[in-house]
């Protein structure tokens, strides 16, 4: 990393007596290098370049993985012999909770966001992700949140109720501050994950090289698109659940308290609606790595490209219909168990398609059995075993025995280590040359593989048996002589072997090859664009090629040389700005030259202030939390004001080959519009989860109001009318501004803000005037949460309206350059739906209907 930095900041010596064309090329390279250079000194950490962010992100996630691995060794040490007193029950419970939490939230998901941020731009032929600063913000949030959550165990304050945090245990006092750390720390990280998902989706849809139609996209990009889409729908239910949970912990709103009308099962639904897709969010990107590695070593294009894409899409869809298989033993009606059992089994079909696509590709190619391929074979052996036990536990009768036993521990580790960790290691050995042009050691790699493979099986295979012999999960000790002693001792010994294998990889990554010579550019002779990457340059691709094939480096002769010679699109940075191409969603027709944000400290400031909000809330330091909240909003506004929606000095830029593209876009064509759309889809999903909660409570009670008063019909309807008028004002402002009616548009924006403010008060007035006390019963609590949600979104709507007004007054938003107004109007469409649903539900249901 250091080497990269040095060469990137130091211009290469120019060739003295070169032909004009060469001078041209050299001059372009100097420009590009200067524009994309990382800052030096401590400012290096303000870099937002995707290569740096990807590496930092990945290394941090890897470090968290090692930490969680040590916790696992601690757990195994405690369970090595029966009735062991190595660690206390409480420390054990903290250790296993943190192990699961860290592996899932701080390693498995972030590592793929890291890999994607690092790999996607070069793979798609882009210079950068569309929102590099958002990526940097995500990384810093992740780092702060992760350190906060992990650090808690050193103060004996780690969460101790399991990574699933079931109430009422996790809402009780026994859970201590650990539960708050879990909820707030992870909510913060989930927000960062969502930010990354937005960035990945927009990047994959809008920033591909010209000609890279969707059916030519590298499979990795397809998988990441699907996974990012899943994140947008899977994380919000958990965020909504976290909100309800924290309201109960902090203020006693009884969402999960059965005594006051709540239900602990609502949390289980929300958690697993997130939790099951999560498994596929982890697994699919890993398979995506194999989908890049296997064709390379088979020396041929993948067989069944459409099969595997459809299978991945199918897996994504099905994964949202399986969550109840985590709840087979909760006493739900058998008919719904049967449905979810069938769905859980069915997901094996698209998974099998993906496995057999790999086998078919190998059958039809000449396979070179390299270290990455060795890991890929390990994946097949381990993951298939996990998949088969998965089918077994999908069957309800068997699950009643296996559920919450060590059989499940074995199953989930076969799936996650086989389906995620081994592919990551395969990917590490495969893609390592992209980091600094050097290879990892084959010898160490093979040693590590065999240690890990054997260690893994020795650890986890006996657990199948331990589980069926009755050993429940999450026990810190067990009696001797009921048939678990040997199995546990074997598992612990295996864990040590697995640990040695992991350690070998760590040594391989960090310690040696300082002095090793650089290898060639495309050492595996792969076919996809990321192998054009020049590790010592920060600009991504030297020029952006026209793509005509799924494997352009195999099929398009001389492409590599032409790209490096700057013969393709956008070879310069004359205006001194960081630029990349935006293309159309399906056919990748060039549409715009996008100027992306450069080096900035505003991302760190935003992450630190937002992090402080969450940390302060954990300790109930209300004032600090409020102040940092305001600071965060200010930082974000400053970021947006200075860094986005800039009106370019000219309308168009020549990107070469006779193509001139606009430098500004608004509405559907702009990346910002898509980002808003995707963000609000996630936001809408969180809102839908709250509404789901409302109706869930209604279904489980005879009278779900518990005899308490409702918010009435009057105020909700007034609020709805006001919000609707605010929406009309906003959309009207956009239209008026576009037609040149600038002052009228400003009036409408100001009026809209006033109407919206009135709407917020009216919404809150409903439950306020009827004296609904949210701590008494779940009905007032869920009504309050809905109206507060609507009011907070109203407040955000006001900030956006006023922001547009200010931009207009400052001359930064004009009839021709009105991107912000389009995005804000889009926000308001979603806001209208939120208001409509909230007001109708709380106002009319169930009393008035």
């Amino acid at each position, binding site marked *: 990393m250091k080497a990269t930095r040095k060469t990137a900041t130091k211009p290469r010596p120019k060739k003295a007596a070169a032909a004009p064309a060469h001078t041209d090329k050299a001059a372009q390279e100097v420009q590009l290098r200067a524009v994309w250079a990382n800052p030096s000194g401590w400012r290096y950490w303000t870099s937002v370049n995707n290569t740096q962010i990807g590496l930092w992100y990945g290394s941090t996630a890897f470090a968290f993985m090692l930490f969680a691995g040590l916790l696992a060794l601690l757990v195994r040490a405690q369970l090595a012999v029966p009735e062991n007193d190595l660690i206390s029950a409480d420390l054990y419970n903290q250790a296993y909770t943190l192990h699961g939490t860290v592996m899932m939230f701080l390693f498995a998901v972030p590592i793929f966001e890291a890999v994607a941020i690092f790999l996607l731009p070069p793979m798609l032929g882009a210079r950068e992700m569309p929102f590099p600063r958002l990526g940097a913000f995500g990384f810093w949030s992740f780092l702060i949140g992760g350190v906060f959550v992990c650090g808690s165990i050193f103060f004996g304050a780690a969460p101790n109720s399991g990574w699933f945090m079931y109430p009422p245990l996790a809402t009780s006092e026994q859970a201590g501050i650990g539960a708050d750390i879990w909820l707030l720390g992870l909510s913060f990280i989930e927000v960062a994950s969502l930010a990354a998902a937005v960035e990945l989706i927009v990047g994959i849809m809008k920033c591909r090289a010209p000609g890279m139609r969707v059916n030519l996209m590298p499979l990795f990009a397809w998988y990441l698109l699907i996974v990012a889409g899943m994140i947008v729908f899977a994380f919000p239910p958990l965020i909504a659940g976290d909100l309800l949970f924290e309201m109960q912990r902090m203020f006693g709103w009884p969402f999960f308290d059965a005594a006051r009308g709540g239900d602990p099962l609502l949390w289980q639904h929300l958690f697993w609606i997130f939790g099951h897709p999560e498994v596929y969010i982890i697994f699919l990107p890993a398979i995506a790595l194999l989908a890049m590695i296997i064709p390379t070593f088979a020396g041929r294009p993948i067989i069944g490209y459409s099969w595997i894409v459809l299978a991945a899409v199918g897996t994504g869809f099905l994964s949202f219909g399986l969550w109840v298989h985590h709840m087979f033993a909760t006493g739900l009606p058998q008919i719904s168990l049967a449905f979810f059992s069938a769905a859980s089994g069915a997901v094996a079909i698209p998974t099998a398609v993906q496995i057999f696509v790999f086998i078919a590709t190998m059958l039809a190619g000449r396979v070179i059995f390299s270290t990455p391929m060795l890991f890929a074979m390990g994946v097949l052996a381990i993951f298939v075993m996990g998949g088969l*036990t998965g089918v077994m536990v999908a069957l309800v009768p068997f699950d009643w025995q296996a559920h919450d036993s060590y059989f499940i521990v074995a199953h989930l580790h076969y799936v996650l280590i086989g389906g995620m960790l081994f592919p990551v290691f395969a990917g590490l050995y495969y893609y390592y040359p992209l980091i600094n042009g050097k290879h990892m050691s084959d010898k160490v790699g093979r040693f590590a593989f065999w240690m890990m493979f054997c260690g893994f099986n020795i650890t986890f295979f006996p657990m199948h048996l331990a589980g069926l012999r009755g050993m429940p999960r999450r026990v810190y000790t067990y009696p001797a002589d009921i048939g678990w002693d040997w199995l546990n001792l074997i598992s612990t010994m295996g864990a040590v072997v697995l640990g040695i294998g992991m350690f070998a990889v760590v040594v391989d990554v960090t310690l040696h090859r300082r002095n090793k010579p650089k290898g060639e550019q495309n050492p595996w002779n792969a076919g996809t664009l990321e192998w054009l990457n020049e590790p010592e340059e920060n600009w991504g691709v030297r020029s952006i090629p026209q793509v005509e094939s799924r494997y352009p480096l195999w099929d398009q002769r001389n492409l590599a040389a032409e790209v490096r010679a700057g013969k393709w699109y956008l070879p310069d940075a004359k205006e001194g700005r960081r630029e990349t191409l935006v293309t159309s969603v399906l056919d990748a027709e060039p549409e715009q030259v996008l100027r992306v944000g450069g080096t900035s400290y505003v991302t760190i400031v935003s992450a630190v202030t937002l992090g402080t909000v969450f940390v302060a809330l954990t300790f109930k330091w209300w004032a600090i939390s409020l102040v940092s909240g305001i600071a965060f909003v200010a930082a974000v506004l400053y970021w947006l004001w200075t860094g986005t929606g800039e009106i370019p000095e000219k309308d168009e830029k020549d990107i070469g080959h006779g193509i001139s593209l606009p430098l500004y876009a608004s509405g559907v064509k702009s990346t910002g519009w898509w980002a808003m759309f995707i963000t609000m889809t996630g936001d809408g999903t969180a809102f839908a989860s709250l509404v789901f909660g409302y109706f869930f409570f209604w279904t489980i009670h005879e009278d779900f109001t518990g005899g308490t008063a409702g918010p009435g019909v009057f105020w909700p309807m007034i609020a709805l009318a006001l919000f609707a008028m605010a929406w009309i004002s906003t959309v009207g402002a956009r239209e008026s501004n576009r037609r040149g009616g600038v002052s009228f548009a400003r009036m409408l924006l100001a009026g809209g803000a006033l109407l919206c403010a009135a709407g917020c008060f009216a919404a809150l007035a409903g439950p306020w005037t009827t004296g609904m006390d949210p701590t008494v019963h779940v009905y007032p609590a869920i009504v309050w949460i809905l109206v507060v949600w609507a009011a907070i979104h109203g407040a955000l709507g006001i900030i956006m309206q006023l922001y547009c007004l200010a931009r207009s007054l400052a001359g930064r938003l004009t009839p021709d350059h009105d991107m912000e107004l389009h995005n804000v109007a889009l926000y308001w469409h979603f806001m209208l739906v939120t208001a409509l649903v909230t007001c109708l539900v709380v106002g009319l249901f169930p009393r008035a209907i």
Partner: protein
Amino acid sequence: MLTAACLSLCSCNGVQSALDPAGDEARQVATLFWTMTIGGLVIWAFVVLLSLYASRWKRQLISETAAGRVILWGGVVLPVTVLTALLSYALWLMPSLRPFAGGEDAHLRIEVVASQFWWRVVYQRPGENAVVSANEVRLPVGERVEFVLSSADMIHSFWIPALGGKMDVIPGRTNRLSLSATKTGTYRGQCAEFCGTSHALMAFPVAATEPSDFDAWLKVRSSPSAGIDANLDGRALFERKDCGDCHRVDGTAAQSGKGPDLSHIGSRLSIGAGLLENDEGTLARFIAHSASLKPGSQMPAYLHLSAEELAAIATWLKGLQ
């Protein structure tokens, strides 16, 4: 070979093993398990050998058309066939596994209330008085018994692997489970849902006996133990130390339902919810050291009692047969 190894391992001492079934449900599920395991191993070996063949051993490449057929047969036809068969079997099995045991009219209804980290067990026969016990389950062989499960605090899960699968115990809800033991013997059940610090120590012995033995046992339990009037020193201490604030002993002033019922604790198969053998020494130890023996439990430690006092209480309790 692997299967043979598993089989040999399974045969030893499985009081808590789903693979040594002693009940209807457990037996059928064990059969299902072995069927799936053998089938699964065959599929696993096929996929792994095929991958190794494809990547290492093959001499000749296959055509793209043939490769497409591999995807179709291996990725679609094979899993669809296997899954359809398995799912049909499981769905056919489901209703018969846990038939309705009769609800309120069940011949024997056992109400189980789970708390951190013990079980209240109440035996209910139509037209007879309820018999309250704790931390062990007894049931007659050959009879379908209805369990009515509720929780006093956290989510727990009631699981007797040798008899059948588990059922969660959730605050605010009442779950039902029906089990039928087929073999006499003593088994072990355990809480299967993480429920707090001492979740690991929330077990219980299960005794499946001949119906006549069960009836005799239940009859004895429905009236106070003769032991309440023996060892009166111990009884006096028990009362003086306010043990009755939490515990109930039938026939004495101690009538609280907060903690486990101790009316016939002397004849229990274990103490501390499957934690320790039941003798005077362990009883005394548990009274003095409950906090360290069972971290997080509600029972306060009586470290300030002298050894003699502890022994006296323990002797009296042990006499409550």
